[in-house]
Structures are given as C-alpha cells and as structure tokens.
C-alpha cells in the first residue's frame, strides 16, 4: 500500500432524520478548517434551500479535507453525505459503496429508529466499518447508557467506546475524527490496475456539462484521458477532474485509487452518467464493472400541469432542467381534457415527488396542479396479455381484465408502545397484512406489516404522524406484486368524466373514497349559474352523488355615487378569478379542488 493511500479515510455519516447528521458534518468541517468561518452556513452540505428548510438531504454531497490527527499525521478525509430517505435508497447504497466506513449518528434521547436500522444494514451490506456516535448528549432527556445498549442489542455492534457528542455545541466532536482515523480502514485497491471509478452522484453544470462524483477504486484518471461509462457504453475525453472542497471544486487534474473526486467530460445528458455505473478508460478498460449497478426506476407517477395553460413551455423547460440533475425523474407529455397539456412524471417515491413539485414551484416560480399519485399496476387481460398501467386513463375496461396485481411493500414502523393500537388500526385500514411485532426495548416496538404501495402514496406519513403524535418512524421497501381486486373510480361533473380525477383503487375502498371525494368537491366548487351534479362512479355505476346548487345571489346592489370604476374593477377581478379556474364543459373548478381530493383521509 502506498503511503498516500494509508492516510486516506473515506466515510459516510448515516442517521435517522433529525438525529443531527448535517449538524455533525458542519462541525467536522469547521474543526478541520475545511471552511472558514466566513463561509460557514448551517448545514453547509445541504445546498438546496429545500434541504436546509426541511432538514433533509436530497442529493449526495462529498467533500475532501485534511485532518491533523493526534498521532501527528495528516489524513485526507473524504466525507460523503448521503440522502437520508427511503426514496433514495439506491443512491445511499452507492454512496456507502464508495466508503470504507460509516459514522452512525444516534440521538442519545430518541435511540434507534427505523431509518437508523435501514441505513446501518445498508452500510453493513457494503462491508463498512461502523463508528457509532451518540449525539445530543447535552439534552436533558439524553440517556446515552440506554441508547448505547440499544445499539448493541438491536444492531449488534459494540458501542461502549462510542464518542458522546453534541454536534450543536461542538462538544467532543474531535473524538469522532480520532475514531475515524483509528477504526475506519484505509482504502484498498490497485493504483496500477485498469481504471474503475464508481459514480455515486452526478449533477449538471451549464458550463462543464455533467459532473460525475466518483470514488476511484482501481487505477487512475487524468485530464485528457478517454473514458468509458461501462453501463451506457458512452465514451468521452476528460476535460477536468479533481477533488471536491467544501465550497468549490479543486481541479487538481488527476485522481487515483482510493481517492474521491469529480470528473467532467463535456457530457450533455445526465442519463449517460447514472449513479452506480463504473467509469473506466477506453484504451485500457477494466474486465468488468464494479458490482451493484442497476438503473433506478420510478415507482410513483402523477400528472403535472401548469395552472395557467400558457405556461406549458415554461413547465417543460423547468422539468427538463430538473431532469438534468436527476436521472431518476422521468417525464412524458400527457394531455387531459380537464387540465390541458402537461406531463406524466415518474418518481422514486412520495418524497421525491413532493420535492420535484416544490422545486418547480419555488425555483421555477410555476403554479402547478398535480393529479392523484398512481403506482404501477400489472393487469392481465382476458386474451392473456399483461400490461403495466401507471395512469388511470389507460386502465382497461373491466370486461377485458382477467386479473389485476398491485405492488406491495415490506414495512416497519418503530414507535413507542403506547401507539400500537393506533398504528395497527391505521395499517388495517390501509389493507395491511400483519407480519409481526418485536419489542426494541421495554417501551418501544417494531411493527412489521405488508402494505400495498398505493395505500402508502396517499398521505400515509401524515396519518401515521398524527396518530402517533409524531413519535413513530416508518420505513419500507418494495416487495413484489400481489393479486388484488382493483377498480377504476371516475368522477363526473355535470355528467362528464373528469379524467384528472380518476384513479385506481381497491374495490372495498372505492365506495367510501368516492363519497368523500364527492363531498369534498361539493365544498370546493363554488356555486355556478346552474346546478352542478357531482357523481362518483365505477364503470358506469354511480356510487355517490352530491349537488352544487345553482348560484342565487351575486349582485352589486348599490352604485356608490356614480363610482363606476369601482364596479368595473370588481367585475374584472371576478373575471380574473374565473380565468384561474379550470373550465370543464360549462363547469368552472378552482385549481385547489384537484389538490384537495388527494388529501381526504383523517377527516
């Protein structure tokens, strides 16, 4: 092993949401002097406003910095910050695969949570050395001894020597760095072997093109090399490569085995440089790529439409730009009679979907309407053909359906035992299949269910939070398909089906949902100049009906001493309000009516 490699430490920080991962990362960077105080912002690695605000990490980030350890040596640390959410599990696994160790941050008062376990198992699967750290020990409710035991019992790794820190105040954070030096092994790999660089993230820069974040496993790469992406087969000339500083890129021109850095090669589309792919040299390629590559596929789909139809080109531009940085986002044009021109977008999960929606609204200043999220159903037709349906509009007529299957998840809910009843009630209501329950300690449980994915995509998180006063945590992974009694529920306004409101649902739940939707729409649709019947139906059979009565009064009785302008302004405002409505035949529907029917539960 070369001396250089001996002093490299590649590690991630893994934690349950809110256990202080980003704060600890900030402290570590501060302590190492990787950033000046002037550059220091809270949650430095979380670049996006959204990440800072929600306290979550959406994209992977990496930073290289030097640490002068107690043994007198200078170490190069590569910290790879990972997204902390199940939607981005694959990205997390690739980030972890780029490391030799992981710092496991556990809140000293809350203890082990669902994501703690999920992420730790991912790290163990990648063969990583785990360095447990107890955070928030300055909180009055901190109980480090109990949590230490929890880590040992549940995860099965020794934790008695775990640093006990407060990332917020900086207390004992240096112990974490020393533990990294001592416990995490230096990278292995052959510098003289053919290049194998693992892409753990990539982003699009309008000047440099795609920038791939890589861990060099074997070999080396430098500016001018012709590289090849082993999964896509695409070849490019490296225009720039180097390391990732806390606040900028440092184009040192060459990277070699054990190092973490970036490669730019004037690549135009991010899908060429997908997370998990291996970069090698075109002239002297590796025999086989690094293991574990798979193309991530979207699981949740919904229609995204501009509120103002004329903003369709702006929406297209915005989605295309987001797509540059997000290989997992898919989109294709879609039209709806109710909503006009828009896109059918695919997402890794609900959080991913929400993030994209929020970014479209905030970063691109667009008003959008989204349709009910759908999952991918497998429909076997009477002629034996099997089709995948992610859009209710394409759902076949029930007469030609032989059988239908829906995607299932394997879900774990961690919660104080006080809420077992509430959680089980919620899971039963969501058609869950009870698998089992384990006590984590005397008053906390791990409840294990199989849940249909389409039951989770409708505000399951919100319901779980409200039923457990925010104490439960939840994690799931996909678990194949299961035969199911599915129907397509349509909503008719004034006798016409509103395509944007249709969705696929289990037969047992269709009646209640149809009734609730009709009620909600009645609330949301203002009175019009004529009566508007609202009907929920399954294949032509009406299961619920409500009526929006005709408007009786909308008049300005007085003339206000000849102030005609006031009256004109009022009518113009009313006209503007009308424009913001969706016109469906004769019926005008406010934009928020579409959104409101997506969130019906718990009411």
């Amino acid at each position, binding site marked *: 092993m070369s001396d250089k490699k001996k002093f490299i430490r590649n590690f991630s920080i893994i934690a349950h949401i809110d256990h202080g991962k980003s704060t600890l990362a900030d402290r570590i960077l501060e302590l190492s002097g990787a950033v000046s105080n002037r550059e220091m912002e809270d949650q430095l690695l979380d670049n996006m406003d959204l990440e800072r605000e929600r306290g979550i990490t959406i994209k992977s980030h990496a930073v290289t910095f030097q640490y002068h350890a107690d043994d007198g040596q200078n170490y190069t640390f590569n910290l790879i910050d990972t997204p902390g959410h199940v939607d981005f599990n694959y990205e997390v696994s690739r980030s972890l695969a780029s490391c030799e160790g992981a710092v496991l941050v556990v809140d000293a008062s809350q203890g082990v949570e669902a994501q703690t376990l999920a992420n730790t198992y991912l790290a163990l699967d990648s063969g990583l050395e785990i360095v447990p750290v107890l955070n928030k020990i300055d909180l009055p409710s901190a109980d480090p001894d109990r949590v230490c035991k929890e880590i040992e019992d549940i995860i099965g790794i020794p934790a008695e020597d775990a640093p006990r820190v407060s990332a917020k105040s900086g207390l004992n954070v240096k112990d974490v760095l020393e533990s990294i030096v001592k416990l995490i092994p230096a990278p292995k790999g052959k510098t003289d072997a053919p290049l194998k660089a693992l892409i753990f993230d990539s982003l699009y820069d309008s000047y440099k093109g795609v920038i791939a974040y890589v861990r060099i496993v074997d070999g080396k790469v430098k500016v001018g090399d012709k590289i090849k992406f082993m999964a896509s087969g695409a070849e490019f000339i490296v225009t720039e490569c180097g390391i990732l500083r806390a606040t900028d890129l440092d184009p040192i021109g060459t990277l070699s085995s054990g190092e973490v850095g970036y490669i730019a090669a004037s690549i135009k589309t991010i899908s060429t440089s997908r997370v998990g792919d291996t970069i090698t040299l075109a002239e002297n390629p590796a025999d086989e790529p690094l293991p574990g590559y798979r193309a991530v596929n979207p699981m949740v789909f919904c229609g995204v439409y501009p509120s103002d139809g004329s903003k369709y080109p702006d929406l297209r531009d915005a989605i295309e730009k987001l797509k540059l940085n997000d290989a997992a986002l898919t989109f294709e044009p879609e039209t709806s009679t109710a909503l006009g021109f828009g896109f059918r977008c695919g997402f890794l999960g609900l959080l991913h979907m929400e993030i994209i929606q929020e970014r479209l609204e905030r970063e691109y200043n667009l008003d959008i309407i989204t349709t009910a999220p759908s999952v991918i159903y497998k429909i076997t037709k009477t002629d034996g053909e099997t089709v995948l349906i992610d859009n209710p509009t394409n759902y076949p007529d029930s007469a030609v359906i032989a059988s239908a299957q829906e995607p299932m998840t394997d879900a774990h809910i961690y919660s104080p035992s006080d809420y077992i009843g509430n959680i089980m009630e919620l899971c039963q209501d969501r058609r869950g299949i009870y698998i089992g329950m384990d006590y984590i300690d005397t008053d906390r449980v791990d409840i294990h269910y199989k849940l249909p994915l389409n039951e989770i995509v409708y505000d399951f998180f919100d319901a779980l939070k409200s039923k457990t006063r925010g104490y439960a945590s939840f994690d799931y992974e996909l678990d194949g398909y299961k035969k199911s009694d599915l129907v397509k529920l349509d909503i008719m306004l004034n006798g016409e089906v509103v395509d944007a409101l249709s969705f696929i649902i289990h037969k047992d739940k269709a009646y209640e949902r149809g009734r609730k939707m009709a009620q909600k729409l009645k609330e949301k649709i203002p009175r019009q100049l004529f009566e508007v019947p609202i009907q929920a139906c399954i294949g032509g059979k009406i299961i619920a009906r409500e009526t929006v009565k005709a*408007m009786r009064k909308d008049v300005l009785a007085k003339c206000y001493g*000849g102030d005609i*302008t006031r009256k004109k302004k009022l009518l113009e405002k009313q006209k503007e309000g009308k424009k913001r409505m969706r016109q469906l035949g004769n019926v005008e529907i406010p934009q928020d009516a579409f959104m409101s029917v997506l969130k019906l539960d718990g009411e």
Partner: protein
Amino acid sequence: MEPIGAYIHIPFCVKKCPYCDFYSLPLNEELVSAYVFSLCKNIKDLSRVYEREIDSIYFGGGTPNLIGVDNIGRILDAVHCGFKVLNPEITVEINPSAHTNIDFRKLKNTGVNRLSIGMQSINDNELFNLGRRHNSHDIKQTLYKAKNAGFYNISLDVMLALPNQKDEDLINSLSFCVENNLPHVSAYLLKIEKNTDFYKIKNILPLPDEERTADLYLLASDYLTSRGYEHYEISNFCRKGMESRHNLKYWNCDEYLGFGSSAHSFMNGKRFYYPRSIEKFIENPVYVMDSTGGDTKEFCMLRLRLAEGIKNEEYKQRFGENIPDIYYDRARKYVDSGLVSVDESGINLTPRGFLVSNALVVDIIY
C-alpha cells in the same frame, strides 16, 4: 349635445350608520360654511371648463338636509349661474328626521322638486337594529310635511335582507310605499362593507343566507310589480315614467359632473373623482383620474342593470355596429333557466338574472 347631470356630495351625518361606508363626517357649522363656499367655487370653476346644459341635480350624502335649506339654495344658485339648467329634476336625499329641521316649503322654493328619503324600513325594531336614529313616526311626519309642501315626486329607500328579516317585515315596508302612493322605491340588498361597524360583527349578525336573501329580493320584486310598479333597475322600482333621472345617467352611460369630496364624474370619456377628504377639497379641489369610460364593455355592463337591457338600435347608434354575436351566444345559455331574455331588439336580464348579474355580466360581456 345631451344635457348632463350634476351630483353634489354633502358628507355630513349626525352619526355614522353601522352599515354605511360612504364618506361622511360629524356635523360642524364652520366646516359646513367653508365646504359650501368651496362647492360653489368648484361649480363655478368647472362650469368654465365644461360649457354644458344640465337637466338633473342630485344632492347625495351623507345627510344633505343637515346643511340647511339656505345652503342648498346657495349651491343651486351657483349651478344656475355657471350652467344652463333646463327643466331640471332636482333631488335631495333627506333622512326621516328631516321634519324636525327642514322647512319643506322653503326647500320647495329653492327649486328642489324630488326627495329621496332614507327610510330603510317602516318597522321600528328593524330601524333600531340598523342603528338608525329615526322611527316609523318620523317617517310618517316627514312624508306628511313634504307632501303638504307640494312634493309629489318622492322616493323611499327600503333595505332588503336585514338580519332576521321575515317576509312580513319586508311586506310591511313595501306596503307602506304602495299605500302612500309613492312614485319611486329604491330597494337595496344590505351589503356588509369593510370598514363598517357591521363588518366587525358580521359573524354574529343573523344575516339571511344566500337562498333567503334571493327569496326576499324576489318577494320585493313580485310584490311591487304586481302593484303597478316597474322593476326598472336592479335596485329600483317606479310608477311609469317616474325613473330617477340622475340614476338613469349612470346606467345609460351618460355624462355627469360630481362636485365635492368623494364625488365622481364622467365627462368626455374620462372617469375622475375628488378624494375622500373634505379638508383637501376645501383647500384646493384636485381631481384624480380614474379610468377611461364609455367603451362597449362598460356600456353593456351598465345597461344590463336596467330592465331594458342592451338595445341593438342604441348600441348601433353609439358604436356603429351590432351587438357582437358572441354576447348573444353566451346570453342564450341562460334563457332556458330564466335568467336572461334575448330577442331581435337586444339582451336583458330578468329579476332572477339581476340577482346574479355580476356572474352573468362577467360571463356574457367580459
């Protein structure tokens, strides 16, 4: 050139009514003198700019009778001095307490020939709840004295959709108008305006709901039309030929000049007004340009307030073309449900259509 109307705003009240958002101030003798002086000067100044004939003069408020007959006479003199006044209708809004402070014979002698009385209701409990200072006795006294002095062209205000209003309550007020053979009734729906006392308590006021409000309005319309009145404008009823000349100027999109603070004008295609400040008006009246007016949309919007509606012939005369086909197409959608009538001669709203006229106008015209 067609004669124009003159509107004179008198922004004084003894007390602000809890539902009223018109510009008004407490009565103050000094301020009244200064204001009347400025009004006369304002009339003189504008008469030099607009050399037009006037056939309608309207004193609105506020409570115009509070400034006294002499002041009303002074203002009318100023109008006569500056403008050519032809066979005018001269209206003064008065409140039902006017019998205590107005000499109606003297008022008649100034040339005033029409009175608009802010009755609102003949029911004492309703008047009390509206915060009015008068009662049914005052109304009768004022009406009696006015008639005795030779006023026949009298309009009464009746308010519809009052808190807890029952059919009988409304019929009481309406039958009072009919029995006294009054040629004109203004029946306004109570509207809770911002910046009023009612607005602050609107959540606890037992206001009738949308259905009930509509029913009361239609009750008033049926009651009066079946007793010989024409429902000639959204909120106005009259015996044949007794329309308010002043208000018709608004709805016909005709011209008028407003004098005084918060008075609005429409002249030569421009709408403008004096700000809601008596001090500014006294110091130096400067009007504020509001918008251009008289375009096709505005004309139609205003004319649809009248039972007569938009007449093809007049439209053609004014704009040199027929009523756009698209207006007809949109209007026809509402014929079957009885909100709109459409024929060769034009488009008009029915009383049920009046009730939803904002929505109809927005859909048909805008």
